[in-house]
Every structure is written in structure tokens, then in C-alpha cells.
């Protein structure tokens, strides 16, 4: 009964304070729950998208001498397999066509035999560009090489047999050509094979007519694969899905007992996704957890701001005979009310965010677990912030001591005296250094290994930085308010006039409360700044990634003679030609790009991070300075122990004769990334030199910059002008591919939610703590009013404090946020592809956060000013 009465009294008379405590818990619970649901949803999406990205889940290659029908039966009997279609692979000596009296011939080609219904069963494998969707199909690049179109006759060269002739029915793109022609059964970590330059697709019956005779004579040139789709009822977590799929693949391989090798395409994609999933976990910890912790600390601070009053109330109850257990029961009831209320409200907000932000009900699947965890965390925060201080007060404070109005805490806290902030920051620097030595490799997911290694030590650096930064902000604030009182007084003079000294004295004596408010404003501002800067940098890099993937706004491969036609298309600002060839570096075949080193930077955005040993401008200047200069990958430099100026003799195909010739180059620098280049090793050289050495009739890739027109619109115009056989891609499509490939985690929704919470947190800390601090000092204002203070003078006391605390908090928060942003971006290098040159600062958002913080400070100040106008006698009597 006493408990119920006490709670009813609290709700009647301390409703604002209880609401403030519950509000802090609400933010913490809502943030944790919504981020948890996001994380669970994101992981499930990663798995789904991985599945969608793979046209053929498994490619089972029938081994020489094995019985195809037996292997087919075994594969189809596997409980995981849904579809298995036999695809023939054959190597042709050449393809040729005669167009307008001119015969064009390619080098070796791969000819596939596709069974009926293949395109329907694996729609991601073929993309029709022109002509019929089935029948004899020619790959786009091959069609370009042969100047072939639907209706063109193509001659197929067969080793030791007469040529065969087919008529092209359609031109297709092969989006997954890398996996389609992968070497099945290659050892883990083996370099990927370059896809064939020339590909022809035949109906299975035709293929058998053409290549069955060859299989008898040269079985090494003919093989069969079973392209397989498996059941997709996989676990939501990519790591668990990977384990399930790879185990199933291994099981099938064992069942086949050497008759067939399994190329696990789905497993490989899921292996990448599980790394992304771990990065999502890390992002959650780095970006989300600090916000929840700040919200919990805010709750503690709100509770602590009423500590004096609570101690006095406890003292009164104890003086009237209440036993400590009674008081603890009352505190526990209060904790349940604020914790329960805050948790329910927080979960309601999280449910709304989950429903309307992520499109997922919070109580479905793994989200429910997060909701429960977040709710319990809310109750824990309530217990820690309400119950524990009450218990501490009971065990450490006497009745007489509790009745004192202001605690005489003259001595600095122990952590301040022992320089804990400095030690924490030193620790953070040390941890960052140690993490940096490993190249900021936070997640290690070796191919073929089911376990993922996460470097949890890396979390310590930012955690220590947060803690050290907060304590340093406290120290600086306390120093400013206590040791630099004259400076404070002088600074506040424009606001408080002759009362500036009084305000400075008030702040100095109450420096703990003021410093606490400063620190919380700083932490909330730092959370907002670090989250938003990280998100902006991520978006910026995603854009660069799309640029890298696509090369430019629009990219197309055409004969060099068509560059003028492209430049004349409306919307095209410039079209920079880049030659694409191949070169043998030792035994490795690498892509080689021929560029106009003195001009390319004016048309294509090249980041400094693409190169090593200098800026992009410096490396390009070095390349332009010597015709036979070449930029190579860091791996090549390491493998061949290269030093600048070294002679490199590379073997390249001569476009004029089709033979491979040796061309001398000189090593000039390291290149990591380049528009349209693959992620592994490649070379960049001067286009003029390559043309001089190898002929200039190779097709060029044109990197097109638009004049502000939509890239997809310009791409459409180019398709109209050049025909559908020309491969044209635009950055808008590339952005969608990069975003859905989950080579990095899609942060857009996460950052949206986080930025919203950062705003709420900044508003809450800025306004709430200040308002509560003022509420605690109503007696001071009432006494000042009773002594004759005019409303204007009372207002100046309030506004001077608001200005001091607000400016100090926002400034310190800005600095801490900048340092944290830099640290987070550095540590989370693995999330970025490519790593950023510099931070992207979202000034409009930061201005909005600052404006909101200032508005909340102003609201707190205005509310206090209005409250200070109450007749002092009324206030003093109420108190």
C-alpha cells in the first residue's frame, strides 16, 4: 500500500522527472531494438540477395571417363537439388564470319550446348540483346569481333575435323561469364581464370551433332557440366546459410565419389555475404551501441540530477521510521515504473521503425529476440540508474548528511586526479596502432573455411576513445569553469553584464553539474557527427565504387573510329578512350589498360587512393613522362621485386597478326584501382605506346561523362545510335548492382534511423539536463528574485549559463566527433571499397543537429526564464 501510494505521489508531483528518466530509457530501448531488427533484416536480405545473384547454384563437372547418366542420376537424387540440366562445353579452334565480303576470324572459342528450357531454368545466365532468345546465340563481344548479327553464318573450327557452320539466331550478354567458365575443382585461393574472349551457344542437339564426333577423337576438348539449382530454404544468417550450402555441396561431392566435381557458386557468394554480415555486426557495435550507451548514461544523469532531493526524501522517511528495505522497495517500484514505461514506449517506437522503415514486423523471426533483449536492457538501465543509487545512498549516507542542500564535493574525482582520461586516450591510440599493423583487417573469412574470425580487439580502440574523450571533455569543462573563472566571467559579460561574475561563481561551484551537461551535449553531438560523417563518407565511397565498377557515367566498348559518333550524341560532355588488352606477367594473364595519361584526369574522376607512392596526378605525370612506362599492382611489385625504372618484358597479343609478342616496359608506379579494372592485378600503360607496339585496331572502352543529363538517358540514346550489339552500361545501373552485391553493407536505412536517434539524443541532452539542472536551482532563482532581481537579470543568469554550457558542449562534441569519425573510417576500412581519401562531411545535417541542439537549449532557457518569473514567495513556500 505504501509502495502504491508512493508511486502515485511520484506520478502526481514528480511526473516531469519520471517522464524524463523514462524518456532516456525509451531512446536506449528504441535504438537497440530498431538496430537489432535492422541487423537481423539486413542479414536475411544478404542471404536472399546472394541467392538471387547466383544464376546457377552448383556446376557439377562430369569427370573424364565417368558415366554421365549415372552422375546425372546421383545429382538429381540429392535431396537438396531441384533442377539439374546437362550443359556441353567444347573448345573450338576459331570462329569466323564473312560480312560484306570480308572474313573475320577469332582465336579459340568456347561453344556451349544448352538443353531445352535452360534460359527459363537459369534466367540470370543469359540476357537477350537482339534477335531470338533461343537457338544459336552469339555472345555480345564475339558478335562485335565478328561483326555478326542475327542471320549471320558463323563457321566453327574443330580440331582434326571439318568446319561446321551455324546461323546466328540472337545476340546475348552473359552476365555471369566468370562463373560459367570457371575451372571447377580449382584449389582454394587459386587465381580466377580469365573468361574466354569468344563464346557461341548452341542448342543441345546441334551441339551434339557438331561436337560428339570431336569427343571421340579429342575428349580433352569436350566436357559436360550439370548446372544445378538447389532448394533455397536457407537460414537467414549468411554464415549459417553458407555452412548449410557448402556442407550439402561437400556431401554431393562425396556421393559422386570422384565422378563429378562440384563448383559451389552459391557457397562462394554466401562466403562473401557472411563477411558482410560480420561487418554489419561491427557497424552495429561501432555506430549503434554508443548511441544506446549515451542514452543510458543520459538516464543516469537525469536520475542523478534529482539525487539531492531523493536523499532528502529518503532522510525524511528514515527519520520517520522507514527501514532501508522499505526505501529499497520504493526505489525498486520506481525503477519498474520508469523502466517498464520506457521499455514499452521504446519498443513501440522500434516497432513503428521496423514496420515503416525496414518493412518488417518487430515480433517476427530474429527481430523478436532483439526486442526482448532491448526491453530487458531498458529494465536493467532503470535498475542501475534508480535502484543502485538509492541503495548506495542508503548504505553510505546518514540522515543528517542527506539533508544538506549542497554536497561539499570540493575534491576532484579520483579519475581526474589520476589522469584516467589521458590513460584511456593513450590506450585508444595504442589499440588503433595495433589494429593498424594488421591493415585494419577486422573480419577474416577464409574461403572454404566455415568459421569466421573477427578481431574483437579492434573494438577496444574506439571504446577507449569514447570513454577517454568524454572524460577529457569533463576535465576541460571543469578546468574552464573552475580555474579559468575570470575568463568565464569576462566571456559572459556581454550576456550577464555585472552579474557575469555571479554566473561564473555559480558555474564554478556547481561545476560538476555544468560539466556533466557539457559532456552529455558533447557526447550526443559526437554521436551525431561521427554517425553522419561515417554515413556520408560511406555514401561517397559507394558512389566512387559505382564509378569504379562502371568507369564513368556511361561506359561502352566500340571500335576506336566510333568515338566521334559517341561524342556527338546529346548529353555527352566527353568520351575518354581507354584501350583494354591482356598481357602475360610471367605465367599470369592480366588486364592491361592503355590510357591518355596527360588527358584522362580531365574527364574521369581518379582518387589518390587508387595509387601508391604519390597522388593520382603525380602517378599520371610519371606515366606520361615516359612512353613505355607502366603502372602495375602491388602484388606484382612484390612477386617480381620491382623497383622504379626496372625493365619489364611483357608478352601481349599483337592485334595485327594475332600472335603474342614481347614488348618492353619500364615500371613507374603502383596502381590499386582503376575505372572498369578488376579487383585483382592489372596494368596501366600509355595508349599511344600500346598502339605503336601492337597496332591500333583494337576496340576501345569509352568512358563517357555526361553534361548533367541522366546517365541512363544518355545510355539509351547511345544504344539507339550504335545498336543493341554494343555493350553500354551506365552508372545508375552499376549503383544498383554494387548496392545489391553487398560487397559492403547497405547502410542507408541504418544511417537514417541512427541520424534520427542522434537528433533526438542531442535534443534530449541539450534541453533536458539543462532544464533539470535549473529546476534543481529554483530556490536560488527565487532567492535572487526576492532580493530584487528583475526578470531581465534573472534571464541573464539563465542565458549566460545556457550559452556557456551549450557552446562548450557543441564545440567539444564537434572535436570529439571529428576524431571519432576519422578513427571509425580508418578502422572500418574493410567496409569501404575503395578506401576514402578524406572524410565526407554532411554540413547540412550537422547544421540541422546544431540548430536543433541550440533550439532545445533555448527552449530550456526560455522555460526556466518563465519559471523564474513566478512569485518568489510561492516558489520558496513550495520548496
Amino acid at each position: 500500500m505504501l509502495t502504491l501510494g508512493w508511486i502515485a505521489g511520484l506520478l502526481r508531483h514528480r511526473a516531469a522527472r519520471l517522464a524524463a528518466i523514462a524518456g532516456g530509457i525509451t531512446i536506449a530501448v528504441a535504438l537497440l531494438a530498431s538496430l537489432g531488427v535492422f541487423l537481423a533484416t539486413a542479414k536475411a536480405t544478404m542471404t536472399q540477395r546472394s541467392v538471387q545473384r547466383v544464376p546457377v547454384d552448383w556446376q557439377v563437372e562430369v569427370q573424364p571417363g565417368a558415366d554421365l547418366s549415372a552422375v546425372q542420376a546421383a545429382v538429381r537424387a540429392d535431396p537438396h537439388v531441384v533442377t539439374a540440366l546437362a550443359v556441353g562445353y567444347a573448345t573450338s579452334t576459331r570462329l569466323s564470319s564473312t560480312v560484306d565480303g570480308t572474313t573475320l576470324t577469332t582465336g579459340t572459342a568456347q561453344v556451349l550446348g544448352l538443353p531445352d528450357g535452360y534460359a527459363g531454368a537459369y534466367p540470370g545466365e543469359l540476357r537477350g540483346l537482339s534477335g531470338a532468345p533461343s537457338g544459336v546465340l552469339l555472345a555480345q563481344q564475339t558478335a562485335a569481333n565478328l561483326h555478326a548479327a542475327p542471320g549471320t553464318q558463323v563457321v566453327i573450327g574443330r580440331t582434326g575435323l571439318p568446319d561446321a557452320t551455324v546461323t546466328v539466331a540472337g545476340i546475348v550478354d552473359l552476365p555471369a561469364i566468370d562463373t560459367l567458365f570457371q575451372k571447377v575443382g580449382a584449389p582454394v585461393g587459386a587465381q580466377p581464370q580469365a573468361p574466354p574472349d569468344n563464346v557461341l551457344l548452341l542448342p543441345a542437339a546441334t551441339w551434339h551433332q557438331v561436337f560428339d564426333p570431336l569427343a571421340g577423337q579429342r575428349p580433352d576438348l569436350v566436357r559436360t557440366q550439370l548446372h544445378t539449382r538447389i532448394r533455397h530454404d536457407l537460414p537467414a544468417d549468411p554464415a549459417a546459410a553458407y555452412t548449410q550450402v557448402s556442407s550439402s555441396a561437400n556431401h554431393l561431392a562425396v556421393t559422386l565419389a570422384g565422378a563429378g566435381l562440384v563448383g559451389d557458386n552459391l557457397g562462394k557468394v554466401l562466403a562473401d555475404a557472411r563477411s558482410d554480415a560480420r561487418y554489419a555486426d561491427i557497424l552495429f557495435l561501432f555506430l549503434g551501441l554508443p548511441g544506446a550507451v549515451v542514452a543510458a548514461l543520459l538516464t543516469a544523469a537525469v536520475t542523478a540530477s534529482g539525487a539531492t532531493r531523493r536523499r532528502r526524501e529518503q532522510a525524511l522517511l528514515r527519520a520517520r521510521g522507514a527501514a532501508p528495505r522499505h526505501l529499497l522497495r520504493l526505489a525498486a517500484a520506481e525503477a519498474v515504473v520508469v523502466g517498464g514505461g520506457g521499455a514499452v514506449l521504446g519498443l513501440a517506437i522500434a516497432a513503428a521503425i521496423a514496420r515503416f522503415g525496414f518493412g518488417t514486423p518487430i515480433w517476427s523471426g530474429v527481430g523478436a529476440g532483439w526486442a526482448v533483449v532491448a526491453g530487458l536492457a531498458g529494465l536493467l538501465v532503470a535498475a542501475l540508474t534508480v535502484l543502485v543509487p538509492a541503495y548506495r545512498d542508503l548504505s553510505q549516507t546518514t540522515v543528517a548528511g542527506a539533508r544538506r542542500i549542497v554536497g561539499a564535493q570540493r575534491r576532484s574525482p579520483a579519475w581526474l586526479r589520476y589522469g584516467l582520461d589521458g590513460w584511456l586516450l593513450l590506450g585508444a591510440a595504442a589499440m588503433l596502432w595495433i589494429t593498424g599493423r594488421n591493415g585494419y583487417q577486422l573480419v577474416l573469412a577464409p574461403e572454404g573455411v566455415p568459421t569466421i574470425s573477427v578481431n574483437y580487439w579492434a573494438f577496444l580502440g574506439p571504446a577507449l576513445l569514447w570513454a577517454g574523450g568524454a572524460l577529457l571533455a569533463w576535465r576541460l569543462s571543469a578546468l574552464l569553469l573552475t580555474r579559468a573563472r575570470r575568463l568565464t566571467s569576462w566571456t559572459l559579460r556581454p550576456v550577464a553584464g555585472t552579474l557575469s561574475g555571479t554566473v561564473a561563481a555559480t558555474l564554478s561551484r556547481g561545476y560538476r553539474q555544468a560539466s556533466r551537461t557539457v559532456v552529455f551535449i558533447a557526447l550526443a553531438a559526437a554521436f551525431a557527427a561521427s554517425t553522419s560523417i561515417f554515413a556520408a563518407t560511406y555514401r561517397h565511397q559507394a558512389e566512387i565504387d559505382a564509378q569504379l565498377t562502371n568507369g564513368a557515367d556511361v561506359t561502352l566498348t566500340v571500335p576506336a573510329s566510333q568515338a566521334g559518333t559517341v561524342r556527338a550524341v546529346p548529353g555527352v560532355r566527353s568520351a575518354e578512350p581507354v584501350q583494354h588488352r591482356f598481357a602475360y606477367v610471367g605465367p599470369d594473364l592480366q588486364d592491361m589498360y592503355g590510357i591518355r595519361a596527360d588527358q584522362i584526369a580531365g574527364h574521369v574522376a581518379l582518387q589518390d587512393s587508387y595509387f601508391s607512392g604519390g597522388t593520382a596526378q603525380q602517378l599520371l605525370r610519371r606515366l606520361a613522362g615516359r612512353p613505355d612506362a607502366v603502372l602495375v599492382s602491388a602484388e606484382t611489385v612484390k612477386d617480381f621485386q620491382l623497383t622504379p625504372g626496372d625493365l619489364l618484358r611483357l608478352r601481349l597479343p599483337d592485334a595485327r597478326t594475332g600472335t603474342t609478342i614481347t614488348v618492353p616496359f619500364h615500371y613507374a608506379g603502383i596502381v590499386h584501382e582503376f575505372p572498369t579494372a578488376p579487383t585483382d592485378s592489372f596494368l596501366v600503360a600509355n595508349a599511344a605506346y600500346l598502339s605503336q607496339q601492337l597496332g591500333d585496331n583494337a576496340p576501345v572502352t569509352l568512358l563517357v561523362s555526361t553534361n548533367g543529363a541522366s546517365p541512363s538517358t544518355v545510355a539509351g540514346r547511345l544504344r539507339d545510335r550504335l545498336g543493341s550489339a554494343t555493350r553500354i552500361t551506365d552508372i545508375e545501373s552499376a549503383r544498383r548492382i554494387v548496392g545489391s552485391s553487398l560487397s559492403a553493407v547497405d547502410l542507408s536505412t541504418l544511417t537514417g534511423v541512427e541520424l534520427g536517434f542522434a537528433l533526438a539524443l542531442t535534443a534530449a541532452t541539450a534541453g533536458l539536463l539543462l532544464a533539470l539542472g535549473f529546476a534543481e536551482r529554483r530556490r536560488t532563482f527565487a532567492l535572487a528574485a526576492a532580493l530584487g532581481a528583475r526578470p531581465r537579470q534573472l534571464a541573464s543568469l539563465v542565458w549566460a549559463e545556457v550559452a556557456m554550457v551549450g557552446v562548450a558542449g557543441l564545440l567539444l562534441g564537434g572535436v570529439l566527433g571529428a576524431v571519432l569519425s576519422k578513427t571509425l573510417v580508418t578502422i572500418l576500412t574493410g567496409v569501404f571499397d575503395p578506401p576514402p581519401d578524406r572524410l565526407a562531411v554532411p554540413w547540412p545535417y550537422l547544421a540541422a543537429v546544431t540548430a536543433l541542439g541550440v533550439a532545445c537549449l533555448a527552449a530550456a532557457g526560455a522555460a526556466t526564464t518563465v519559471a523564474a518569473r513566478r512569485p518568489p514567495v510561492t516558489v520558496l513556500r513550495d520548496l
Partner: protein
Amino acid sequence: MSEDLVHAVELSRTYGQGRTAVVAVHSVSCAVGPTDRVALTGRSGSGKSTLLHLLAGLDRPTGGTLDWPALGGSPSGRPGLIGLVFQGPSLLPPLDAAENVALPLLLAGGEVAESRRRALAALAEAGVADLAGKLPEELSGGQAQRVAVARVLASSPRLILADEPTAQLDAAHRDEVVRLLLAAADALGAGLVIATHDTRVADQLPSRWIMDDGRIRERLPC
């Protein structure tokens, strides 16, 4: 009449409305001049503090008229005209003794250095110069009340109103505080009204107004 520092006619103060209304001061007429030394006595709840607050201009009457002829009108928002000593802790907790004493002077527009000089002088006059740098929490009840008297002295008010200034003090401190208030009133030529339920305090003043149920029942010259 023109010499009156404060002049009240049929003064009333009612809190609340309707059936829950509480009449704290009921039709009180009184005046205080510069030479008056009045003990306002009565039981707890008799309306002493409310009347004192009305006379100080800290509260607004709900009936009657109230004027401060010798002060040129309401003292509200005009620091220094009336010196107040409150019941219980009346010093601002975050300010030390000297800053507390100087505050009314600063609120009245005084310069910082001059206000501090006068504050230190007033503390010395009240015999507590050594407490200038102490915070209120470091002072005993008697010391705090003497600092509060020094605050009154520093601002040289025309009227001193003290609400139970000795309520929490022992006999020695009680007499010391009353002596200080009387000396201050004499030195400043100010009127003095002390609300108290302690007859030993009231006995030290020449006049006594006895309040009961919101009314002044008796006015006794001692």
C-alpha cells in the same frame, strides 16, 4: 502618512478559490515608519509571514490597498530599498558569503569592485569578516543568519523585514542576530519588522503586533 515606509489599508491575501480558499491575511491595516521597531508575533499559521511578504512587495494582495509612500512606490524590481532576512537558509548556495552579500548591490546596478568592497565592510560590521570566502553549506545556522544580516546592511535599505530570523538558533545566536538587526536599523535609519513566534525575540523590540487568524488582534507598545 508621507513618512510611512509602507502603508496598508484593509489588506487581504486569500489562497485558492471557493470552498478550498484559505484566507491568510484578513483586512489588515497597518503602517511602518523609519523609526518603527515592530515584532510581528502570533502562532504558526497566523499569517505573519504572508503579511511580511506583502509588505515586502514579494506577494500581491487579493484585497485592500498597499503603498510605500516613502519609497516612491512598489519596491518590486528595485533592489536595495527593502532588506529581507528569510526564515531558514536564505543564502544562495553556490555563492560564498561575500558574493551573497554583494548580490543585491549588483542587482541594483552596482559596480563589481565597489559592491565587493561594501560587502566585505558589511560582513565586518556584522562580525563575520572571516567568513567572506565560505560557502553557505560551510556555515552554521547562526553564521548564515549573520551573513544574511550583513547582506541587509550592505544594501542600506529603508525598511528591514525579517521572517523568523532566529527560528533555528540557540539563545546566544538568537540574541546576537536580533541585536545586529536593531543596530542595523538604527544605523541606517530604517524601519524594522521582525516576524517571530518567539516571545524572547519580541521582548527585545519596542512594538508588538499580535496576529491571529490573519488579523492583527493587538498592537502593543512594549
